[in-house]
């Protein structure tokens, strides 16, 4: 999908290639490529989360959801592997110390986002959670806005890697706005949950689930802030 599209266009990774510098910056090139690959897996993970949520909201629990959970977990795990390998490369004489710190900070903040996406689908699968039918439109809207924050974050990260840091400020602003919309949708849902006649235990379980989804955009907002700080810091 996204990865295939990128390959067809020559790929994000290709856009930060060095040409002649490849000979002298081999380690750096490895990190660039792994980072581009990490961003691909990161986005795959978000897409799997989105598909899993929509499937669940449409058809409820079942094999389809288990399949999406397995995909989210696989992409997240692949992302973790890549993140660790980038960290190892970073500490073996590749890049300046400040660039190492910046990349580590970005990686960690991005990782927190997909960790939470994976844990949301896992919660559905493990707790065999059934949501009320009146909650479905709200949850669908929450998923949509959450994915919108992630999409903007992914775009901002790609821009930063390519040096097109001009629009990063605007993107960070868009992430903040989307995160704020997420909060409104989540609060509205929680209000209705606690106003309903459901058991308290059930209310608390649903509250935990809604909060878990909303946290994805919270974390995306923090990651966006990190990207913005790094882009400002890199100007002299």
């Amino acid at each position, binding site marked *: 999908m996204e990865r295939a599209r990128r390959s067809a266009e020559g790929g994000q990774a290709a856009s*930060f290639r*060095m040409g002649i*510098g490849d000979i*002298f*910056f081999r380690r*750096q090139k490895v*990190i*660039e490529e792994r980072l581009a690959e990490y961003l691909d897996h990161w986005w795959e993970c978000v897409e799997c989360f989105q598909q899993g949520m929509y499937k669940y909201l449409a058809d409820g629990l079942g094999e389809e959801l288990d399949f999406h959970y397995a995909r989210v977990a696989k992409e997240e795990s692949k992302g973790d592997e890549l993140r660790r390998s980038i960290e190892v490369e970073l500490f073996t*004489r590749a*890049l*300046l*110390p*400040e*660039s190492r710190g*910046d*990349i580590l900070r970005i990686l960690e903040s991005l990782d927190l986002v997909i960790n939470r996406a994976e844990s949301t689908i896992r919660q559905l699968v493990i707790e065999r959670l059934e949501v009320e039918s009146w909650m479905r439109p709200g949850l669908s809207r929450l998923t949509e806005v959450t994915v919108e924050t992630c999409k903007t974050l992914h775009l901002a990260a790609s821009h*930063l*890697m*390519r*040096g*097109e*840091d*001009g629009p990063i400020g605007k993107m960070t602003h868009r992430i903040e706005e989307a995160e704020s919309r997420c909060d409104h949708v989540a609060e509205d849902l929680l209000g209705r949950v606690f106003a309903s006649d459901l058991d308290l235990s059930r209310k608390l379980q649903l509250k935990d689930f809604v909060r878990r989804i909303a946290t994805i955009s919270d974390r995306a907002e923090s990651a966006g802030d990190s990207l913005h700080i*790094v882009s400002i810091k*890199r*100007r*002299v």
Partner: protein
Amino acid sequence: MILPVLGGAYLGWSLGANDASHVFGTAVASRMLRFGTAAVLCSVFLLVGAVLQGREGIDTLSGLTAQTALTAGLAAIAAALTITMMTVLKLPISTSQAVVGAILGIGVMQGELNLAGLEKVVACWIGTPIGAMVLAAVLYPALALIYNRLRLGMFRQDALLRTGLIVVGCYGSYALGANNVANVSSLFLGGGLMNPFEATLLGGGCIALGVLTFSRRVMDTVGKRVIKLDAFSSLVVVAAEAVTVHIYAMVGVPVSTSQAVIGAVLGVGIARGSRSVRLRSLRNIGLGWVLTPAIACCLSAFFYVIAHLRYVG
């Protein structure tokens, strides 16, 4: 004959061990360049600089006073002791000022001193930290303007800075060799021990030996302190220091690379809008500036008196 050679060799070794950190400290301490690679690059460029442009400085120092093998040896010991004392006092070490101070002491005792040459040397010493500071303060905004307009990606920016640090490191090594080899070679030349080319080659070799054998820890210490500035500022500091020292190599006056670095750091601070100048840095420059030649001068004069004592029965 052995005295000036040993003294000069020690000075050269100590100079290499200490001053290589000013040009490659950042690159090595940040682990972007292996120490071995940095030391070899530094030694090669240093030797090339010494051979190609070291002669002017040697002529200046040799012209300050007439030297014999004995007086050259005494000056070498006085300069070496001064450097050791300054190291203990943790003040910026200037081999150039120690050597000139020591030669001055001998010249005073012999009653023959080239005052015009001395004036030129002192003027250049004043100009070193000030020149490096002004140059860094001008270079920083100029390079920052170009750097920001390039709009490079994160990785290309990094590659540019890393390449820049290596290039200015090599240039700084060249300038160091061209400027500072005179401190060592002028002692070898004292009393006609060898010809100028041999003296330059041996002097450069001694400095390179210091770089290869003992500069690692100093590079780590200086590099980690300097790198707090950030890579771009470090690049400007090394470039300003290298250009300053190179200009004085062409003028023919050995100057202190430590003082040039301190001046350049202050210049970058001014360019970045730092309102407070570290008084301690200024005090250290001042103290090192006055104490180094003064102590070396007194010591060499004292050694001269001791060497010329005669038993009166």
